[in-house]
């Protein structure tokens, strides 16, 4: 029987990555490699104001002096930053007025991904900004949102239409030069979404950005900036997929969130970049900086992430709790299978009084993968009565994978309470047998048990997203049990 177990273990992931197709669309590229010229090229392509070009050039100069961080529990093959194309865009003939003018190939791509850009079909009431390679191709619902004074458009468009807002908030949560990958993004970011919710407005629909890498040899460096003004609320979703390719592709995004007094932003991600083949060939390097700052009192930022894709993930969505009584939350499910590696977690930096934060992290490792939780909880000197609760659970499937937990705690104020709980468990044979005895196949049983394990996090997701995420969790782990 032990032999059987081994066999099952070795028969990893029978299901294919569903989103591995490429679309044949006319694409315009920057020359391969990264020089000051590349930065200028991107800025010029976007017709950017002088101050933004300067921002990019300054970042580029800084980046050149920086070194890639190596403190994560990851084995990252050397990346040749001169062998990457930093800008690729579907060729646009002119400004798009309606959906009829979008390249049908592109529409088809998004339909295949299950994302309808046709507004009348969007019953679920989600406004979508679709970003393919370096450019936002279509933002839906813009007009409806505009009635509420909500700005939701591609970053490039916002630079043209709302330069003051961009200038005011860009780099406020992730300062220019923050870290190696964010600084690279500062220099070469191509597009992304910008969202501004004015005072007192509750955004009536879920806002969503959908990222798709299509072109080969390109990196994707999108930039998302969300600002919720006083007493505003928005729920924001992010999804991503990429074609199946043998070489690795770099994705170094930056997401910044700023909340003013009494404002709340809920940011949900379902990350399903191509994870590489089951032998560990190809896949996306997902090196992302996500940070929010609760600037105003009583404001709240909540990150929820379901991470199943990418060959390597390096990502720590964080909250700076500057305002008094502000709240930060981080809910995460990270699945690694085959040869995937993930080093992910959160940072909660408490600065204001009576600030509280929650970290719930559920790691699931299968195959030969390595899954690490890394988190920092810091209570500043003025963070009187700061509270944190962290729970980090790891679930192991099989005996060839690894789970690691690296919690850092820095308390500088004696009135703070920091709690940390951690568990590591294996899916037990007893649980599997119990399910199977009721007629449930082994793969379904794993899906069921894992979804149950991750329930605390999944229930944080908006409804439609939760269903997708549940399916994704089951699929990512098919055939991974022994």
């Amino acid at each position, binding site marked *: 029987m032990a032999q059987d177990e081994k066999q099952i273990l070795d028969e990893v992931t029978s299901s294919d990555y569903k989103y591995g197709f490429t679309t044949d669309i006319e694409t315009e590229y920057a020359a391969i490699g990264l020089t000051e010229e590349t930065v200028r090229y991107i800025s010029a392509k976007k017709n950017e104001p002088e101050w933004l070009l300067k921002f990019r050039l300054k970042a580029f100069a800084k980046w050149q002096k920086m070194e890639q961080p190596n403190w994560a529990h990851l084995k990252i093959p050397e990346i040749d930053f001169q062998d990457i194309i930093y800008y690729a865009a579907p060729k646009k003939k002119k400004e798009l007025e309606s959906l009829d003018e979008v390249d049908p190939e592109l529409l088809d791509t998004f339909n295949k991904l299950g994302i309808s850009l046709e507004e009348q079909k969007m019953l679920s009431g989600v406004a979508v900004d679709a970003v393919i390679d370096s450019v936002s191709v279509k933002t839906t619902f813009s007009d409806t949102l505009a009635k509420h004074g909500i700005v939701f458009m591609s970053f490039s468009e916002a630079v043209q239409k709302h330069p003051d807002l961009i200038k005011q908030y860009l780099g406020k949560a992730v300062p220019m030069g923050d870290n190696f990958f964010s600084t690279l993004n500062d220099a070469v970011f191509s597009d992304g979404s910008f969202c501004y919710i004015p005072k007192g407005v509750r955004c009536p629909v879920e806002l969503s950005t959908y990222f798709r890498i299509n072109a080969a040899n390109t990196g994707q460096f999108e930039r998302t900036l969300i600002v919720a003004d006083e007493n505003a609320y928005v729920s924001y979703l992010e999804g991503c997929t990429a074609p199946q390719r043998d070489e690795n592709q770099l994705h170094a995004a930056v997401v910044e969130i700023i909340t003013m007094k009494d404002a709340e932003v809920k940011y949900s991600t379902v990350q399903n970049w191509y994870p590489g083949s089951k032998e560990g060939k190809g896949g996306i390097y997902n090196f992302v900086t996500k940070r929010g700052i609760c600037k105003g009192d009583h404001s709240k930022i909540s990150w929820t992430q379901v991470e199943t894709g990418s060959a390597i993930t390096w990502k720590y969505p964080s909250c700076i709790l500057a305002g008094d009584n502000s709240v930060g939350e981080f809910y995460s499910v990270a699945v690694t299978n085959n040869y995937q590696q993930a080093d992910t977690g959160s940072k909660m930096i408490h600065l204001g009084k009576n600030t509280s934060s929650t970290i719930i992290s559920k790691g699931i490792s299968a195959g030969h993968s390595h899954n690490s939780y890394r988190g920092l909880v810091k209570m500043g000197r003025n963070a009187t009565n700061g509270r944190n609760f962290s729970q980090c659970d790891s679930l192991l499937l099989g005996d060839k994978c690894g789970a690691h937990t690296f919690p850092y705690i820095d308390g500088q104020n004696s009135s703070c309470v920091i709690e940390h709980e951690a568990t590591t468990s294996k899916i*037990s044979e007893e649980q599997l*047998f*119990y399910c*199977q*005895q009721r*007629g449930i196949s*082994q793969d*379904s049983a794993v899906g069921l048990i894992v979804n149950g394990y991750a329930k605390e996090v999944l229930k944080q997701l908006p409804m439609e997203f939760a269903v997708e995420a549940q399916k994704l969790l089951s699929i990512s782990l098919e055939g991974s049990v022994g």
Partner: protein
Amino acid sequence: MLLNIKDLHVSIHGKEILKGVNLQINKGEVHAIMGPNGTGKSTLAAAVAGKDNYEVTQGEILFNGKDIKELAPEVRAQEGIFLGFQYPVEIPGVSINNFMRTAINEIRKYHGQEAMTAAEFLKKMKEKQQLVEITSKLKNRSVNEGFSGGEKKKNEIFQMAMLEPQLAILDETDSGLDIDALKIVANGVNKLKTKDNATVVITHYQRLLDYIVPDFVHILFDGKIVMTGGKELAFELEENGYEWIKEKIKG
């Protein structure tokens, strides 16, 4: 014949536990298997259900005439074998609703039937819950998580009612039950009895058999069925104890 076990030898990690069990069960019958601790009662149940690491080294398990010993546990379940666990397993975060619905639909799929509609399913849940007198809050609770011993056993019978197996093997379902819970569980089992299904109750004590009356009583001893009789055998056993069996075998 529903279940025909012939000369069954089963080893766990190389240690032989069952040493040639023979057992025939027809539709419409209730069988009781009794015996002292560590004689292989639970091993027999688990081997029929197909648990991993229970290696059949010799013999056959025929279910409806088909040898099932190479089949995966889920396929045996889909064929109509149900095991009521002595120690029901907790599955955190998985609601009973979701668990049962997944099970029923996988079984239906195996038989080429369409998935059950949500309305049909909920109706069935409600109906079967009454059978074992459990409250409607059950369906949203996680499988066995935080259940009392009695609730766990009731939940086993509830699942049996939902899945309507041809053969139900109840492994020490009476252990840890107070007399009220025992009556409820036994009553549930009796109500589920038809001429087309069969029940095997594995028990230590005659007590359960006051409520579930068996057609046959088998005594399992040292990996073999050493004695078979009617319900009176259980009384004899209760009166004389297992030492009596040892004597009888020797003699």
